[in-house]
């Protein structure tokens, strides 16, 4: 019984504190408003209020389940006590909090100076439009009942039962999949992968036409991140060189194309977009090599710090007074020219999306070719154990420089497309957060995985665009997502698949190895192979 009470208290206090903090930053108000539009009819019902109660009730349930699950789910009394204690303590905490903010409001104190989201209206909403004492009591009752219900749920569902149901569902799905002849035929059909590729290409071709300007622009931004993600995938994912200043190469590409095509700076050197883009990519790659030289001998954390510094140096350089005649200083470079082909200007968002998709396809093509080659294997070997890879005959210097150069070229290409689409590039487009975002794209998607980059870029750059109302909580959600990811799925959302190389008819399970380890078997293998 003591254990149950303790578990309930821990869960209850944790949930209480989390609810109070998220409420203080105005999270409940925004989310309720958003959810209300989906679930209820705002014209006839107080939709936001309903969804607020719904969210709170679900949180209470969760607190109850969480408290009851680890201890005493085998006995009714234990589960219910845990759930009830969790609900009571959460209710007590949040109730007192409600009383306090309600009290402020009743006295006409404005606390927006300290907590920007806590306007009198928002507080009234959190109090269910009730007087403080009544609101506190209803919070208390709400959490107590839902906590108790959570304990009840935890007992009825039980951990074992949930797991069992899950397994049954899974085996049923695989059974269904295996039993359908279409699936078998598809998996055996040698052209399936080409059909999938074809479908993706057709989708990529149709997507920009079918979408409006806003979506073309948004997807273009996501696409630039995909491009950079593919680049950093080579540097960090494959070669294992933790580069925190990746945005520098993006900036080099963007500024090069800006300086060469904008009439503002260096007008005597103004050239056409295509040669400028080509030059920009080459210069970005060379910058990658220049960065590579001093850090050749650095490993791990030291490399991360030095590259971080490099990224900042580039940003500070382009905004400095020293180069402001050249780079425009903090104002950046404007009037960057766009591409044209056969006299047709390609400067609308749709044309840019097409170009970005093409660039991504090129990057994927290059990545795959590298991955399955001697160089790609050398990168991965270097990531696994640099010393041993050198002893295996890999020249780690040139191999590292190549990784930096290829990664930088991808980022440079991203920079070229980004700058010419926006017709502008400024120092703030190249801040540290971009490097971190790109790295997060790869981590969330799955290190070294190409589909993972798409998924990661969409989750981190696309979803915030879709949920504009939640923009204020982007960093919060971002941090929470990263933490949850690292705990639940450290390999990323879509981890990379290894190519099967040995192509044996049937793979030997590891347990059977003991038999082959017998001397006789080994010698037989030796004799046979040396014949």
């Amino acid at each position, binding site marked *: 019984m003591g254990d149950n009470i303790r578990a309930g208290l821990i869960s209850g206090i944790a949930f209480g504190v989390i609810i109070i903090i998220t409420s203080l930053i105005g999270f409940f108000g925004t989310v309720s408003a958003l959810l209300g539009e989906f679930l209820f009819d705002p014209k006839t019902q107080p939709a936001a209020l309903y969804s607020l109660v719904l969210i709170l009730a679900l949180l209470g349930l969760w607190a109850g389940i969480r408290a009851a699950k680890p201890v005493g789910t085998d006995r009714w009394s234990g589960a219910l006590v845990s759930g009830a204690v969790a609900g009571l303590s959460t209710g007590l905490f949040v109730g007192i909090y409600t009383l306090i903010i309600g009290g402020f409001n009743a006295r006409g104190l404005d606390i927006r100076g300290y907590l920007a989201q806590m306007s009198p209206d928002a507080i009234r909403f959190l109090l269910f439009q009730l007087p403080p004492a009544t609101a506190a009591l209803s919070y208390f009752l709400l959490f107590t009942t839902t906590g108790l219900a959570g304990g009840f749920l935890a007992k009825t569902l039980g951990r074992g039962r949930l797991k069992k149901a899950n397994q049954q569902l899974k085996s049923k799905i695989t059974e269904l999949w295996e039993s359908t002849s279409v699936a078998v035929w598809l998996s055996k059909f040698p052209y399936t992968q080409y059909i999938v590729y074809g479908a993706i290409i057709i989708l990529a071709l149709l997507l920009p036409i079918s979408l409006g300007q806003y979506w073309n622009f948004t997807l273009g931004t996501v696409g630039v991140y995909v491009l950079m993600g593919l680049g950093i995938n080579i540097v960090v994912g494959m070669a294992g060189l933790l580069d925190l200043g990746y945005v520098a190469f993006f900036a080099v590409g963007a500024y090069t194309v800006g300086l060469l095509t904008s009439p503002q700076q260096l007008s005597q050197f103004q050239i056409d977009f295509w040669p400028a883009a080509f030059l920009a990519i080459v210069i970005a790659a060379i910058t990658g090599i220049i960065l590579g030289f001093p850090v050749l001998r650095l490993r791990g954390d030291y490399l991360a710090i030095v590259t971080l510094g490099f990224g900042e140096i580039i940003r500070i350089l382009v905004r400095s007074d020293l180069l402001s005649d050249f780079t425009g200083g903090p104002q950046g470079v404007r009037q960057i020219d766009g591409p044209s082909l056969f006299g047709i200007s390609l400067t609308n968002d749709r044309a840019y999306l097409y170009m970005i998709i093409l660039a991504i396809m090129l990057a994927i093509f*290059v990545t795959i*070719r*590298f991955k*399955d*080659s*001697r*160089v*790609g*294997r*050398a990168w*991965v*070997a270097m990531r*696994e*154990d640099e*010393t*041993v*890879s*050198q*002893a*295996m*005959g*890999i*020249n*780690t210097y040139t191999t590292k420089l*190549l990784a930096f150069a290829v990664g930088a070229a991808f980022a440079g290409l991203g920079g070229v497309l980004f700058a010419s689409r926006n017709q502008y590039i400024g120092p703030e487009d190249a801040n540290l957060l971009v490097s971190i975002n790109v790295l997060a794209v790869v981590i969330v998607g799955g290190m070294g995985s190409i589909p993972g980059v798409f998924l990661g870029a969409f989750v981190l750059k696309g979803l915030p665009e879709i949920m504009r109302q939640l923009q204020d909580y982007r960093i919060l959600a971002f941090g929470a997502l990263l933490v949850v990811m690292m705990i639940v799925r450290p390999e990323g959302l879509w981890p990379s698949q*290894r190519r*099967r*190389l*040995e192509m*044996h008819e*049937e*793979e*030997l399970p*590891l347990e059977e*190895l*003991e038999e*082959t*380890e017998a*001397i006789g*078997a*080994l*010698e037989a*293998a*030796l004799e*046979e*192979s*040396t014949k």
Partner: protein
Amino acid sequence: MKNTLETRALTKRFGGLVAVNKVDLVVPENSIVSVIGPNGAGKTTFFNCITGFYLPEEGDVLFEGSSIVGLTPDRISALGISRTYQNIRLFSNMATIENILVGQHPRLKSTWPEAVLHTRRQREEEKAALDEARRLLKFVGLSGLGDHLARNLPYGAQRRLEVARALASQPKLLLLDEPTAGMNIQETAEMIRFIQMLREKLGITILLIEHDMRVVMSISDQVSVLDYGEKIAEGTPTEIQNNPRVIEAYLGRGAATGLQQAEVKTT
């Protein structure tokens, strides 16, 4: 007979500590030479000097007659010296067969533009490399395990994979650092047989660091003993077994005379 490897007064210091002190060693072609010695005698440091990870302060290392001191490890590997490690160091998150493919790196010639363009030469080279890797898998008895991650293999299999990876570059000289460490009697016997096979079937010269006396005595043509970085004895296994200085180094002062007395008593 030609000498595959020769060290002349090889010396390596770490600050005041002399880890390897004027060691002369000759490894004739197609022989198995062992280096033994107590813990901390400088055996692994000696290996690191040969493979280019340490730069020796004095002395010379001759491989097939020419000096290799000052070359980077990858150049030395490309010349035909391959090694394994005392504590297995595989590329653990790569597939078994990929480990062997990496081992072939210095033999493969295709460059990155060729890889991107998938030229005919690159395709043929990759195919040949894959075939060779499968053959090596079979050679060390790991057929059917090629697509498992290296870290998931059992201990004995990891040791054999490390040897296969070292063989993939088709070395002339193979340095094995305690190849039977942590193995049971059966696995050790298997490894001894395997090392002999390497010399007989592939004609590879082998330099071996070993603790297990059974292994050293059963396969070595010649044994050198290191103690505190110095070579204190050299000779055939039987000569070494009866050398009082060696017994002293292993068992402490006085042990040699004690052992001899014990032998007298029993006979």
